[in-house]
C-alpha cells in the first residue's frame, strides 16, 4: 500500500511538473514587435506592383522612409546624413535607397524578423569615427534624442499605434550607450 502511494505520488508530481513546464512555455511566447506590426503576412508591395512583401517589413520600411525625410529636414540631425542631400551623379546614385534598405534591415532584425539579416557594422563601431570613416563626428545624447524624436514622428505619420511607438522607443533606448560616444 505504501509502495503504491509512493508511485502514485511520484506520478502526480511528474504530471504536475510537466504541466507546469507547458504553462511556462506558453507564458514565455511573447509576441515580437515585428509580429505586432504585421509579421510575416504577405501583402502587395505598393512601391513594387506585382511583388509581395512581409507586412511587418512594409510597416517598418514606411516608418524608416518617413523618418529619413524628418531627419533631412532637421538642421541638427541632417549634418550626420549630409550625403543624403547630395546631387545624384558623381558616384552618388542611390544613397537614399541604400539608407532606407539598411535601416529597414536593421529595424526588422531588431524587432524580431526572422527572414532578414542586417550585415552592417555593429552600432558601436558604426558610430565610432575611428572605426567608421563615414562617421566624422561622435554623436551626443541630444543627437540621439533628436533621432528618437524623428523616428517617433515617422511612426506617427504612418499611424503606428501609440503603444507600439513606445515599444520602438524602448528598443531604440537600448542602443543609446552604443551610439552616444561623447
Amino acid at each position: 500500500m505504501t509502495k503504491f502511494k509512493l508511485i502514485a505520488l511520484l506520478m502526480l508530481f511528474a504530471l504536475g511538473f510537466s504541466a507546469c513546464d507547458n504553462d511556462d512555455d506558453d507564458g514565455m511566447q511573447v509576441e515580437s514587435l515585428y509580429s505586432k506590426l504585421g509579421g510575416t503576412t504577405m501583402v502587395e508591395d505598393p512601391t513594387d506592383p506585382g511583388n509581395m512583401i512581409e507586412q511587418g517589413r512594409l510597416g517598418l520600411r514606411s516608418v524608416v522612409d518617413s523618418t529619413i525625410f524628418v531627419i533631412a529636414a532637421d538642421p541638427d540631425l541632417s549634418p550626420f546624413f549630409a550625403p543624403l542631400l547630395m546631387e545624384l551623379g558623381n558616384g552618388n546614385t542611390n544613397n537614399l535607397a541604400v539608407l532606407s534598405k539598411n535601416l529597414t534591415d536593421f529595424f526588422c532584425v531588431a524587432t524580431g524578423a526572422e527572414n532578414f539579416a542586417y550585415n552592417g557594422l555593429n552600432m558601436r563601431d558604426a558610430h565610432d569615427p575611428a572605426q567608421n570613416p563615414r562617421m566624422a563626428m561622435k554623436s551626443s545624447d541630444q543627437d540621439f534624442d533628436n533621432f528618437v524624436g524623428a523616428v517617433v514622428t515617422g511612426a506617427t505619420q504612418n499611424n503606428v499605434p501609440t503603444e507600439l511607438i513606445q515599444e520602438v522607443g524602448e528598443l531604440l533606448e537600448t542602443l543609446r550607450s552604443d551610439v552616444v560616444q561623447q
Partner: protein
Amino acid sequence: MTVTNNETNNDILMINRKLVQIVSYSLALGLVIFLSFSFYIHQKMTAGLPPGPPMQLSRIDFSESVDSLTAARIKSKVQQMESVKHAYFNIPDGILVFNHDPKVLDADAVVTDVRQHFRANAKRHVVDAEMAGRGCPVTGNNSIFMKVGDAMARIF
C-alpha cells in the same frame, strides 16, 4: 663569336617577350578580378533596393517663417510635381524636403517655382564636398568598387 652574340640577343628578346606576355596577362587578370569584385560588391549593396529610377532627396530652406497654412499649400504644390513621391515640411525650422527623379524634375526649377508662386524667400540647400564627407554612417556607397560596379550595371 658572332653566333654566340646572336644567340644571346635572341635569348634576351625571348625573355623580354615572355616578360611582356606575363605582365600583360597579369594586368588582364587583375582587371578581370577588379571588375568582377566591383560587380559583386555592387550586387551585394544594391540587392533588395526598390525598383525604378534613383530618387534624389532635395531640400529648400525658407529664410522667413512660414505659417502652417502656407506650408501645407507649398508642400501640396511640390507633391503634385512630376516624379515627386513624398514631401515633408519642418515648419518651425522652415525646411521643405522632397524626393524626385532628377532626370524628370530639376530641384532648382522647384525652388524657382516656389519662389514665384508663393513669393517666398527660399533657396536650395546644397551639400558641398566637405559636408558630404562628414557623415552618413549607414550609406557609404561611394567607394571605387561601387562606382565601377554601378557603371558596369548600367552597361549590362
